[in-house]
């Protein structure tokens, strides 16, 4: 079993819809949770960064962490065609592993005009 599981998609939504992405993980020691966006043939770009459980909002993006369920989510409101990309969740346990990130496999999202 992988440490971080993420549905590969593709997830296809119409423009303006809410995109809902999630990851589950098995290591209860993870404390820092990140979402990266990766366009085709480009490097990952950091979108959101949260510590421990709770919600964080940044513009159209909302990240949620539920440590009791080992489950994190990313919501994209009012989705645009430019949001079409692969979204990677990442997390780390800095006490045990410093800044080493454990990534999910990524979910490919397609927003149709």
């Amino acid at each position, binding site marked *: 079993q992988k440490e*971080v599981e993420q549905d590969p998609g593709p997830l296809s939504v119409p423009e303006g819809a809410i995109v809902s992405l999630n990851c589950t993980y098995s290591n209860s020691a993870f404390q*820092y949770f*990140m979402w990266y966006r990766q366009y085709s043939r480009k490097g990952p770009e950091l979108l959101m960064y949260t510590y421990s459980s709770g919600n964080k909002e940044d513009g159209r993006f909302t990240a949620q962490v539920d440590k009791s369920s080992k489950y994190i989510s990313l919501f994209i409101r009012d989705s645009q065609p430019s949001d079409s990309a692969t979204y990677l969740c990442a997390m780390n346990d*800095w006490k045990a592993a*410093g*800044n080493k990130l454990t990534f999910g*496999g*990524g979910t490919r999202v397609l927003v149709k005009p």
Partner: protein
Amino acid sequence: DAMVIQNPRYQVTQFGKPVTLSCSQTLNHNVMYWYQQKSSQAPKLLFHYYDKDFNNEADTPDNFQSRRPNTSFCFLDIRSPGLGDAAMYLCATSRARDQETQYFGPGTRLLVL
């Protein structure tokens, strides 16, 4: 305004012919990372430098080496590329080793013929 720069963006090499990939950063970050990302997979950490301190991942093949001559530059050397080494190679940086987000370059796509 590029902060993490990778050259070349595309590299074609022959089976067994040594190849070097380059990464530079303008952020003055202490930590530099090299990841391998195969198609539709999560990035896999190969090694990282904390300043001049080299840290190899346990499962990184000996075929992969790295050099960091100064703070700004880091190189990935593949001594004898095999067909299985064809991938996107991502360089990332972070200011420190703990509790710091990582910033990725655009990647170098390696093709082995």
